């Protein structure tokens, strides 16, 4: 029991599997971005080269002014949070275990941990640009988190008030939720939430590269930054799978369904990349208004529609 838990966490579907899958998705992201810009793009193993270089070769610099302990602990916490979320999502999604009652709420909180950890790490670095990044990230969390929670509420409602991921997947056995009008509205809102959670343009306000030089991550170097990018790879894999499970009817890895599940994830990631490549960066107040007014409105309309069974 303990042994299988460790395997779940470290190898499949946890750390190792999620990092490799996320690494490939990250390459997919860079490659598609390059193709959109008529470039060739990096080789397939590029994300892994980046990670290994940062982990093995580069020196890790600790902040002189600031708190080195918190600074170094936060990437680890972020990685653990992302991996746990990934395990809790993938175990029911792959039909390995049935999860537990209320796991969808646990996942919701676990998915928050990386962002909060990055904020603490940025504040511990003692860099003014990092603290600007942290404060922007905090505002961004405040704005998209309500929308995300409402989406979960809508999904729970559509599944007949069940708060277990496995049962939500089972409720979609005949038609997945995206097959209704409210499902489509929820999907649109979810895509924008993902965009903000992943820190992609138009919501890369917290790490605006050309403006505040990677913001929250400005002081991270070497192995600490390696953990940061590993967390990002894992999130890039976990979040699309989560949305696929909530709205597109889950994944399954039997027979031809493998291809179908992979296509689902790739399609969601592709959508994210295309939005990222065709939009400029928003200002923070624009992003807040976007989520507070428009996205919340959209989700509330979706909930109302689903009450009437559409």
């Amino acid at each position, binding site marked *: 029991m303990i042994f299988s838990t460790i395997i779940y966490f470290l190898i499949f579907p946890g750390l190792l599997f999620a990092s490799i899958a996320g690494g490939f998705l990250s390459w997919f992201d*860079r490659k598609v971005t*390059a193709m959109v*810009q*008529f*470039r*060739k*793009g*990096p*080789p397939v*193993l*590029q994300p892994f*080269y*980046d990670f*290994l*270089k940062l982990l*093995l*070769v*580069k*020196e*890790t*610099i600790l902040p002189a002014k600031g708190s080195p302990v918190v600074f170094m602990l936060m990437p680890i916490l972020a990685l653990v949070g992302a991996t746990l979320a990934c395990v809790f999502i993938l175990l029911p999604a792959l039909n390995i275990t049935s999860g537990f009652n209320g796991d969808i709420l646990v996942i919701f909180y676990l998915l928050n941990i990386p962002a909060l950890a990055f904020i603490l790490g940025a504040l511990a670095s003692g860099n003014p640009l990092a603290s600007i990044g942290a404060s922007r990230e905090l505002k961004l969390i405040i704005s998209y988190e309500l929308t995300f929670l409402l989406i979960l509420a809508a999904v729970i409602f559509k599944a007949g008030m069940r708060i277990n991921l496995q049962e939500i997947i089972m409720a979609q056995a005949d038609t997945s939720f995206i097959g209704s009008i409210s499902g489509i509205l929820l999907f649109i809102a979810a895509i924008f939430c993902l965009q903000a959670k992943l820190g992609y343009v138009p919501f890369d306000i917290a790490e605006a*590269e*050309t403006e505040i*030089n*990677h913001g929250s*991550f*400005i*002081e*991270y*170097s*070497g192995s600490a*930054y390696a953990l940061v990018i590993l967390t990002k790879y894992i999130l890039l894999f976990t979040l699309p799978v989560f949305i696929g499970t909530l709205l597109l009817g889950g994944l399954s890895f039997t027979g031809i369904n493998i291809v179908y599940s992979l296509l689902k994830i790739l399609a969601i990631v592709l959508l994210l990349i295309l939005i990222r490549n065709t939009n400029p960066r928003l200002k923070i107040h624009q992003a807040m208004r976007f989520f507070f007014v428009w996205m919340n409105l959209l989700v509330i309309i979706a909930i109302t529609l689903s009450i009437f069974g559409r």
Partner: protein
Amino acid sequence: MGIKTFCFKKSLWLFHFGGASCNNCDIEILDCLTPRYDVERFGMKLVGSIRHADVLLVNGSINRRDKERLLEIYHQAPKPILVVAIGTCGCTGGIFAEGNTFAGPVDKIIPVDAYIPGCPPKPEAIIAGIVKLLNK
């Protein structure tokens, strides 16, 4: 070649330091990232923070004020870091070498791993210089 060197050479992240440049070299550096030359093929990308950088590109003539900044940036960089002097200004000082405020060339201030002369060097020359650096 060990795995460490291999990964390092496969993923060079560039940080651009412009001294008192006439801006021509800066534009040629940016040209390397455009679709026509696309150095991302080799895993290179421009980063905004020196803490993430593996290669420090220095161009333009270095005057007395730039010198302090350049030293500071160099000491802030995580090692190992490669320094590339781009343009005649960075390599020798060029027409500014006799100037009153001139404090360079770059290799008098920090150790330089590769020189790419030219005023400005073509993007092809910059890529050739970096390839030579990688094969060193």
